[in-house]
Every structure is written in C-alpha cells, then in structure tokens.
C-alpha cells in the first residue's frame, strides 16, 4: 500500500511529515533502526533520491542519526520527539481553526463543539 501523497506540495516535505508521524506514533520507536532509503522508497512508491532528501533533512533536524555503516536510527531524545509531536499537532490545529473560521465560528463556539464531539467519541 503506497503512502498517500498530495499533488500540490513537494514530495520530499510530505515524506518528512510521514516519517515524523511514524516516529511520534511509535511505528519507528526511539533508538530504533529506520528501514533503508531504498526499502522505504519502495514502500512509499517514490524515487529513492527524494527519500534520501527527506532523510538528510531529518538528520539535519536531529530527529534521525546516521551511524556510518549500520544505517539510520531514530533519536533517543524523548524531549525532541515530544516537541515534534506537538509541532505536528499544532499544524493540524492551525488547519482546523482556519476551516472552522471560514465556516463562521468564533473561538468559544469552536471550543464547545470540540468538547461535545470529543466526549461523543469517548476518547
């Protein structure tokens, strides 16, 4: 099953997002080894060069470390992972708030609607 990728944003940045999601959700656990560029590219259905670019960016951010010969590992820095999780959440909330504002809701109404929906879903 290929990764779902949008058509209007650069592929490499979507790959970065996808991998970050994997890290914060535990699919790629802290300190764990990441699949090789080639394998992950095949899984995602993308060009290995583009996957490589995503990996390089993640290494630059420090979320991923490259050990010379043995491959790439997720960082063990739990704080960084938490921060990444919050960043992803904040981006989602930003999109949500934009959509709600376009519907015409104010901040209080939005909060009320969210509580109502959250308790219904029992989460």
């Amino acid at each position, binding site marked *: 099953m290929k990764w779902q990728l949008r058509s209007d944003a650069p592929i490499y940045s979507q790959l970065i997002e996808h991998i970050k999601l994997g890290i914060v959700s535990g699919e790629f656990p802290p300190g764990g080894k990441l699949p090789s560029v080639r394998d992950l590219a*095949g899984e995602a259905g993308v060009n290995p*060069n*583009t996957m490589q670019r995503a990996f390089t960016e993640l290494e630059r951010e420090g979320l991923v470390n490259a050990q010379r010969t043995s491959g790439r590992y997720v960082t063990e820095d739990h704080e960084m992972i938490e921060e990444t999780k919050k960043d992803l959440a904040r981006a989602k909330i930003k999109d949500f708030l934009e959509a709600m504002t376009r519907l015409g809701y104010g901040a209080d109404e939005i909060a009320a609607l969210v509580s109502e929906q959250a308790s219904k879903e029992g989460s």
Partner: protein
Amino acid sequence: MPIFECRDLDKSFGQVRALDGVNISIEPGRIVGLLGPNGSGKTTLMKLANGLLTPSGGELLINGSAPDRNTRAIVSYLPERTCIPLWMSAGQLLDFYRDFYTDFRRDAAEKMFGRLGIPLKQKVKQMSKGTREKAQLILVMSRRAGLYLLDEPIGGVDPAARDFILDTVISNYNPEAAVVISTHIISDVEKVLDEVYFINRGEIVLHDSVDAIREEKGMSVDALFREVFKC
C-alpha cells in the same frame, strides 16, 4: 560526465522536423521523465539514443560517445511494443539475454519470472498480452545497465501492472545508472521522477525537478502538464 546528452539535436524525416534543437543532459543516478503528447518526438529521441536512427544535425552522446555497438552494451531499452519472439520459451529468453549482455542478471530475472507465475517452459505465444509486457520489462530491468530507456512503459496497462512497473524501477535503482521514462500518463509516474523534460513538437519546452515545480508553482507536474499542453 552525463550518461545521456543531446546538444542541439535535430532529426528530420523529409520535410517533417521531428526534433528541433533538443538539449538534454542526464547524470547517473537520476530518474528522468520525458513528458509530451503523442507525436511530440519522444519515441524518435529514444530511437536515436539506441542508434536505430541517425541525427540530421547536432549530437547525441551516450557516456560521451555517439551510439554504436559499445554504447548498446550499456543501454537497456524497453520499446513501446512487445518485441520478444513468440516462438521462444521463457527459459530461452533468459538464455538469449545472458548470451548477449554480460550485465544481465539471469538469476534475478528467473526469480521474478517465478514470482509472476511464468514457468520456464512456457512459450511467449502462450502468455497473455499483460504477461508478455511484464516479461519484457523484467528482461530489460534485470540488466545492470548504465542507462535505461523506457518508452511508454505504462501506456496501455492496468493500474496494478503500473504499480508493478514502477516498483520494479524503484527496486532496481542504482546510483550509477540513469533511467529515462517517456510517457504522457504523468500522475502515476510523478512520484518516481527526479526531474522532467516537457517536449512538444520536437522542442524541449521545460526542464525542472519535480519538487521545484511543486514548490514554485504550487501544483503537481501532472497539473502543470495539463496547463502547458492545453488544447
């Protein structure tokens, strides 16, 4: 050095200008799309790269030399149509490729045939059209070539087969080789490409990387293509 280079390449058939001042440069390790409508010159360019046609003007270089029997040894070509002899068996096809190409990985090809459920004794004429196309793709991609030229590989092919083709291209990726895919069906192929050349009526009208197009123009290559080639 670029593995595939065109310098002001011209090709005419009588009065018809099939290619006009084409400039292309492809480095090893790149997967490049040659995108254009039917009749834009994609197949003519591929034939020139294989030495099946000779240029009317300008130059075409494979690894620095004009196409000849030596460049053919490092170029692996998938033609648009299925060309494998009908009378041969799968096993004999493997023998054939192994005999002529030292870079042919027979074991890998045999394993892929097995995975597709093609018995070695089965003759090509007994295979379905889709199986023949896949067999030809496997033979071409099982070579450790320097340049792969795939002419409309996903054209008349069902979505599952398209996935198979693109998977094969990704899993055979070799940083020392380049892949050129010519097609007019872009949405499936886009994620696999590093960069694209748009070609129209024999001229290159655009050359950019896929991500740059998405970042700068805020649309996919597929969407940009539709805009550029609007009828």
